[in-house]
């Protein structure tokens, strides 16, 4: 059957018509592409206007068009517009093709003759292609109303609560023994200096007791299968060696445990915990966890002090890891960040020079519940520093480490300056490259710290050393810096240095991304669907990213993003079903030889090999439509809708004007 094609060339005011002779293009198409099936070619001032759309709709109805080509702007702008118009006129929307003669022709070329010639080629390509287009229908899948939230920091807690409050069930998975995340380690939050625990704890408790939230701490997701609306998730619930039914959280086991261990996680290495422990007093849930690696019983086979003293008999040394299988419709990833390892900046001496601290160490040092009960002292545990240097941008905005700005470090540095000043009266120096205090009430805080008398040196610190050059420097840490405002090199001796370390992606972000089928940017943060217009969704439908997993951000932004993701999840749940783009690959099992070459190609696990039939199958719901397997199949057994071989080959021929030549007999 020969198709009846209509070609519509848009002037876009003078945007296209200024450079491309649109009348010539339309006439040419009508004349030269007639054999291809073009029965009408029109030009119009604004095709995307309602009048322009009506023109197309009218022709579809009256001329019986079976294919439409609109030569206008980029398909990313108006493909939907014209497809909807076609749909309104009763034509399958996927039988419409856009020829981009604005972004690809009129705006980027100046010679009218050349631009017109190229526009003709682009139209010719689109006409050839559209003939090979096939009607497609969106794919509808039902949505499981349950949601998985991975990560129990503030972003994850917020997200879980929003969904749970709306009446839907949430599984909140956290790999540490308690939810709370980094925020639970902080003393004060900028710029209001609210006590971090005071504002976080109620949220934690709410999440821990919410009837719609199943809290799974000390647990990790190990496998994700399925697709939007129908994810099947496997979660490893690590053995706590505590019977949660019996445990009352009284804490006697921790008291009696004889094994002291440096707490690298919660106390950032500055404090100790026991081998059986809850990371902090307000932990949710309040059940302790037995640290198998350090527990004397597990190492030597004797001890069991905790068991002897537990009043409810909740200690269970025989507990095993448990695998839980749950089905959810949507997944929110709130996996957070790692602190930049300041040892990498060896010239700042962290790890070599005792009185150089990281930001997280300082948070613990200044925390009333921390190892020094909030006393800001040197590593000897007693000396109060008289001079403190705070170095900004450690590991951030630095070609040697991370190129990006970690967003929070300026404000964090200011907060530290305030705390040091307030608690010790020490002289505080801030060494910064640029002071970045965007957002509400942040710059006011900067002004406040300035007024408190903190000293600011604008310049990148070259090194922190204990190699003194004179008596004044002896026994102290010397900060060597180029003061760019004073225009000279300075050596400032201090007693304590705090490195405002940047944030970086979790060490296992890549693997986690792979597990959930989402990608990481070059820096390693999870990639959002659109950096501006869709910063919470990902390329994988039904998977959302919130908080620092997506990029460095402060608490308000993390909370906002957590809530935003919940709105998206609720939107999906309430729609009850989801429409998937019909750009999918499928296998012709008659042609498939079962060579399994495509099997390793799909990062979305959409390709499975049916061992019994020795053929490969593609799950259309999992398929994201990239087409890699289509291009890879050595037997040509895989085809892809929307971007089929026939369509692309036809478009190549069209662009090369091969369709103008006589058809071979």
């Amino acid at each position, binding site marked *: 059957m020969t198709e009846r094609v209509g070609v519509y060339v848009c002037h876009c005011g003078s945007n296209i018509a200024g450079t491309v002779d649109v009348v010539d293009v339309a006439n040419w198409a009508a004349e030269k592409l007639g054999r291809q099936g073009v029965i009408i070619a029109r030009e119009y001032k604004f095709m995307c206007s309602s009048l322009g759309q009506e023109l197309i709709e009218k022709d579809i109805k009256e001329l019986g068009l079976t294919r439409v080509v609109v030569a206008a702007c980029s398909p990313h702008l108006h493909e939907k517009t014209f497809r909807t118009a076609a749909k309104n006129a009763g034509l399958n929307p996927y039988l419409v093709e856009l020829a981009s003669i604005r972004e*690809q022709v009129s705006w*980027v070329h100046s010679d009218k003759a050349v631009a017109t010639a190229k526009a003709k080629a*682009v139209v010719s390509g689109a006409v050839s292609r559209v003939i090979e287009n096939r009607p497609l229908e969106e794919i509808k899948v039902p949505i499981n109303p349950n949601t998985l939230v991975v990560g129990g920091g503030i972003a994850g807690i917020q997200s879980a609560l929003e969904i749970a409050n709306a009446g839907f069930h949430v599984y909140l998975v956290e790999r540490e023994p308690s939810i709370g995340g980094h925020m639970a380690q902080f003393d004060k939050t900028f710029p209001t200096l609210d006590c971090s625990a005071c504002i976080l704890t109620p949220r934690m408790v709410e999440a821990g007791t919410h009837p719609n939230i199943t809290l799974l701490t000390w647990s990790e997701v190990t496998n994700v299968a399925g697709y939007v609306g129908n994810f099947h998730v496997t979660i490893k619930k690590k053995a706590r060696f505590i019977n949660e039914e019996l445990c009352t959280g009284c804490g006697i086991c921790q008291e009696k445990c004889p094994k002291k261990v440096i707490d690298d996680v919660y106390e950032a290495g500055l404090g100790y915990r026991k081998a059986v422990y809850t990371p902090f007093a307000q932990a949710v849930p309040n059940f302790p966890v037995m640290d198998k690696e350090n527990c004397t019983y597990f190492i030597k086979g004797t001890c069991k002090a905790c068991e002897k003293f537990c009043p409810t008999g909740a200690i269970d040394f025989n507990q095993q890891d448990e695998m839980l299988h749950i089905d959810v419709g949507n997944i929110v990833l709130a996996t957070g960040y790692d602190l930049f390892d300041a040892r990498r900046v060896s010239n700042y001496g962290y790890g070599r020079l005792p009185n150089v601290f990281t930001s997280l160490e300082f948070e613990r040092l200044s925390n009333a519940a921390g190892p020094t009960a909030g006393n800001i002292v040197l590593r000897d545990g007693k000396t109060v520093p008289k001079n403190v240097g705070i170095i900004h941008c450690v590991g951030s905005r630095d070609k040697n480490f991370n190129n990006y700005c970690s967003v929070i470090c300026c404000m964090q540095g200011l907060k530290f300056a305030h705390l040091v000043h307030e608690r010790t009266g020490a002289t505080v120096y801030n060494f910064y490259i640029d002071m970045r205090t965007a957002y509400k009430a942040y710059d006011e805080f900067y002004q406040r710290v300035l007024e408190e008398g903190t000293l600011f040196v604008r310049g990148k610190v070259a090194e922190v050393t204990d190699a003194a050059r004179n008596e004044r420097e002896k026994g102290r840490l010397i900060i060597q810096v180029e003061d760019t405002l004073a225009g000279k090199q300075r050596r400032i001796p201090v007693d304590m240095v705090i490195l405002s370390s940047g944030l970086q992606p979790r060490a296992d972000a890549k693997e986690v991304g792979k597990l959930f089928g989402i990608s990481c940017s070059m820096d390693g943060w999870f990639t959002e669907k659109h950096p501006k217009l869709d910063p919470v969704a990902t390329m994988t439908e039904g998977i959302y990213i919130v908080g620092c997993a997506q990029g460095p951000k402060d608490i308000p932004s993390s909370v906002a993003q957590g809530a935003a993701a919940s709105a998206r999840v609720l939107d999906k749940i309430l729609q009850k079903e989801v429409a998937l783009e019909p750009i999918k690959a499928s296998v012709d099992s008659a042609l498939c030889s079962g060579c399994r070459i495509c099997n390793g190609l799909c990062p979305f696990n959409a390709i499975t090999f049916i061992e019994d039939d020795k053929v490969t199958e593609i799950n259309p719901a999992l398929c994201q439509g990239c087409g890699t397997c289509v291009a890879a199949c050595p037997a040509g057994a895989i085809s892809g809708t929307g971007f089929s071989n026939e369509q692309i080959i036809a478009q*190549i021929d069209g*662009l090369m004007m091969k369709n103008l030549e006589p058809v071979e007999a």
Partner: protein
Amino acid sequence: MTDQFEPTIIGFTCNWCSYRASDLAGTARMKYAPNVRLIRLMCSGRLDPTFVLRALSDGADGVMITGCHPGECHYIEQNYKALRRYLLLKRVLAGMGIEPERVKLVWASAAEGAKFAAETTAFVEEVRKLGPLSWGKDESQDKHSSFIIQPSSEKEVPA
């Protein structure tokens, strides 16, 4: 203008990065060489070597393949697969007497409109330097043609 050779080039772009880069170049009104005609694919991983061969046999003087930067693929890692194909394809083309420079793989993110424009112009210049690919006339379309060898020596075949 001048009689300089104007190559025809087919460009394959990824829907998520390089096609958007070309949109961005357009929005920013960056001028670049008009010789490249683009085809949008969902991913550089969709690029079947057949497309390149078809474009060349249709008379294109060069083929430009563009995709997301390594590690930034919207489909996680499919651009690596495009890279692997591209490298083998180039080797095969070399055996067919086609200069490897005629087929080029360029990474361009959605934000790199300027890079897209610059790379396009640079590639057009490279191909221009190489001259037309100039396949001979296709015999299959002229079924009566027959090629005669001129004896390079007038010496006779011994009886």
